[in-house]
């Protein structure tokens, strides 16, 4: 089921993600991917109008370098470390997706129904992608962190606010995935 060029196991993956977080702490930083969105807003000049973006964003350059590394990692993993055998879902999941006219993975990471060539020419799909991003960007800043900052770092540091945020992530995710998604994709 698991192989180096296929799907990596959850235990090896989880271990390595934990190590990434601890390494950043050892470097005197904290693991948080959504902070980069605020940094980018500042770098694009958002501080001119909005106080929230008036901070020394250059002190966050290290985190943008992490982002650059992550992008490179995504490229290397898909280009050189994949044999196309991954993303083996629960057959029931595949059936459910079919009912929503979402294509089966067959080794792909993302459905064509979401980001395929045809989908990207549909105003409806572009609006869905934009809306999803909007909710993630707004929600993550309102909650003060995302999966890396709250679910991994915050829970590891036994922070109650992070537990509340993670419960929120799941409430929102469940509502979307069970109730709203079928409306969007029908």
């Amino acid at each position, binding site marked *: 089921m698991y192989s180096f060029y296929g799907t990596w196991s959850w235990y090896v993956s*989880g271990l390595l993600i934990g190590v990434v977080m601890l390494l950043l702490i050892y470097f005197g930083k904290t693991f948080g991917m959504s902070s980069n969105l605020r940094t980018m807003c500042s770098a694009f000049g958002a501080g001119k109008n909005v106080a929230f973006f008036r901070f020394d964003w250059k002190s966050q350059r290290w985190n943008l370098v992490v982002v650059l590394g992550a992008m490179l990692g995504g490229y290397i993993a898909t280009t050189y470390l994949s044999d196309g055998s991954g993303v083996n879902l629960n057959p029931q999941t595949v059936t459910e997706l079919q009912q929503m006219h979402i294509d089966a993975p067959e080794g792909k990471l993302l459905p064509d129904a979401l980001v395929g060539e045809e989908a990207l020419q549909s105003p409806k799909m572009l609006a869905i992608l934009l809306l999803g991003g909007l909710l993630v960007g707004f929600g993550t800043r309102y909650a003060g962190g995302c999966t890396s900052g709250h679910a991994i770092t915050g829970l590891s540091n036994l922070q109650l606010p992070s537990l509340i945020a993670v419960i929120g992530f799941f409430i929102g995710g469940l509502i979307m995935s069970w109730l709203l998604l079928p409306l969007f994709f029908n």
Partner: protein
Amino acid sequence: MKFIKYLLVGLVFGIVLTKSEAVSWYRIYEMFHFQSFHMFGIIMTAVVVGVVGIQIIKRGKVKDITGQPINIPDKEKGFTNYIIGGILFGLGWGLVGTCPGPMYILIGAGFWGIGVVLLGALVGTYLYGVLKDKLPH
């Protein structure tokens, strides 16, 4: 050259999230429908490693790479912002299947459509900055 270690950490992060398929929309859907243990296993393992590591750091008074004492800031107390922000985040996560880390990783992997998600996330972050003082925290 001091940035090279961050590049390497990011590189490992990007490879692991891609190869574990945590960046996959499919895996997020499967997680929210409790049809696979995979994503839960990843998060739980990372947190167990993190809890143990942070306890060792705190109890052993481990110094960081520059010799400074390590201080992991506590999150501010609160409820409203964490639950509402969390739910909004979850709605987006369940829809497009990408939290902030995977956005960059997927763009690096050549999924240009996710650029639209990143654009949305930047706009969302900006809107929060604009509305911050009017929102309950």
